[in-house]
């Protein structure tokens, strides 16, 4: 394992310190927690948006804190959902009286911990709504689908809706609309290494790739011979489009898994756009970069989001979150 780090068991707290130190005017950390919030939290009468999950997905989740996106992010240990008490701290810190939406990725652990936090918050009289993102089409069973890079679009849309003054129900509905219309799929060229164990998450031959990976170094759903950029783009895009039949006008995200140079992501984007054009699908907006990662995994995912007028407007509205400036 080659990582720039100090003690593995301090990695999350040190990372959060480093993150906050880079943006002292914009974010703050709630002392003795792994919760980072907007500096100006709570904002009176605005629905608060809280997301989070295990660490190792940077810039998710703290990078999406900002006007127009998240109010708070809760960081768990590496690849481990944060605990209910931490999520509760976040909820309390951002509640400005209009309620709080939790954006949860569909993993057993995340769903349970956030749900318990919601129960605790409700007991303290805070209105809490939850949405569970499950955009990963690599999993056939829709109930079991993981939440991956599509989560970033949920942050964006829900955040914009909340910023516009919508009610908790309206914000939740906008988030649900994204979830119903977003699909992703990814491949890995190399595994990632948990800082605490120092072991690669799987072994891959020099000419192999894992198709249908999640964002925790889990093995994918299939192992294949390493394809070209074009072949990878075709495989991912077609798989997604099969699941998104009504696609007309869409947003595209080509996401790096942590160690993928932007050059390679642009190659994939080139082909994705070509495929969409051929199929008569119009691209409204494209995002190429590292948005939802898996430590130092090499590989990429493609995410497509079906848009209507409401979603377009919300996608375009400003965000000053460092990882998604609009």
């Amino acid at each position, binding site marked *: 394992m080659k990582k720039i780090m100090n003690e593995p068991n301090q990695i999350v707290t040190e990372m959060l310190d480093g993150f906050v130190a880079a943006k002292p005017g914009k974010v703050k950390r709630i002392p003795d927690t792994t919760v980072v919030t907007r500096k100006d939290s709570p904002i009176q009468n605005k629905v608060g948006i809280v997301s989070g999950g295990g660490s190792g997905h940077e810039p998710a989740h703290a990078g999406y804190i900002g006007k127009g996106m998240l109010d708070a992010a809760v960081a768990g240990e590496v690849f481990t959902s944060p605990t*209910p008490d931490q999520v509760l701290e976040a909820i309390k810190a951002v509640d400005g009286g209009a309620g709080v939406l939790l954006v949860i990725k569909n993993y057993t652990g995340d769903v349970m911990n956030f749900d318990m936090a919601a129960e605790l918050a409700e007991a303290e009289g805070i209105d809490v709504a939850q949405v569970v993102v499950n955009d990963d089409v690599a999993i056939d069973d829709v109930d079991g689908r993981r939440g991956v890079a599509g989560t970033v679009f949920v942050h964006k849309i829900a955040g914009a809706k909340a910023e516009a003054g919508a009610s908790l129900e309206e914000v939740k509905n906008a988030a649900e609309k994204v979830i119903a219309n977003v699909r992703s799929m990814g491949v890995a060229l190399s595994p990632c290494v948990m800082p605490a*164990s120092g072991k690669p998450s799987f072994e891959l031959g020099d000419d192999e790739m894992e198709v249908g990976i999640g964002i925790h170094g*889990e093995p994918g759903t299939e192992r294949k011979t390493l394809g070209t950029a074009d072949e990878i783009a075709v495989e991912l895009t077609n798989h997604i489009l099969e699941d998104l039949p009504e696609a007309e006008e869409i947003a595209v995200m080509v996401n790096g898994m942590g160690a993928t140079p932007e050059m390679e992501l642009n190659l994939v984007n080139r082909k994705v756009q070509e495929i969409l054009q051929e199929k008569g699908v119009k691209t409204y907006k494209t995002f190429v970069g590292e948005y939802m990662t898996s430590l130092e995994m090499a590989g990429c995912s493609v995410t497509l989001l079906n848009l209507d007028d409401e979603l377009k407007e919300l996608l375009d509205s400003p965000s000053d979150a460092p990882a998604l400036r609009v």
Partner: protein
Amino acid sequence: MTFTVEQAINWLTKSNEKIQKNKDYLSELDQAIGDGDHGINMARGFDEVVKKLDGNDYEQVADVLKDAAMTLMSKVGGASGPLFGTAFLKISMAVKGEEAVTFGTFVKALEDAVAGVKQRGKAEEGEKTMIDVWSPMVERMKAADDFDASVIRDNAKSSMEATKDIVATKGRAAYLKERSKGHLDPGSVSSYYIFEALAESLEEGA
């Protein structure tokens, strides 16, 4: 035979020892069909449990287990935090009021724990999760009329081993579908350590 505060503390202490000793092994099991953190998670949680219990004076088994449950829930995270936390919390609730817990109460408490875990995890037996160790244990103990360390140990062991042949339908291992077969379920293995620790604490007596 009853189950005392000392035994409860002993149970958790021994559970912690086994989990610490097998931390890497548990993570490796999770590496194969999950995300490789199960040993790290359980070790972090039980280390905190033992720290929490240390030096405290407990009058009731329920209080010991409640502290353990709350610590697991706030220190573990992931899937195992809420699940093991719920298990111990349910046991704690069911044994509340008894200074020394009778066999009948204990079995009823385990039954509540299984129900709680099933509800929390929206899972049933046969899905390749810790439930596959906890649920058969309750069935077996319901058929007995007193604590029996070797029964507990054997039952946990065989249930744990049986998870190898199951195709996962819950938790991260479910993503692998058929490829999850042939691997032990990590949460079942740590559950086995916990029941082994229970057996030992029973053998050593109060």
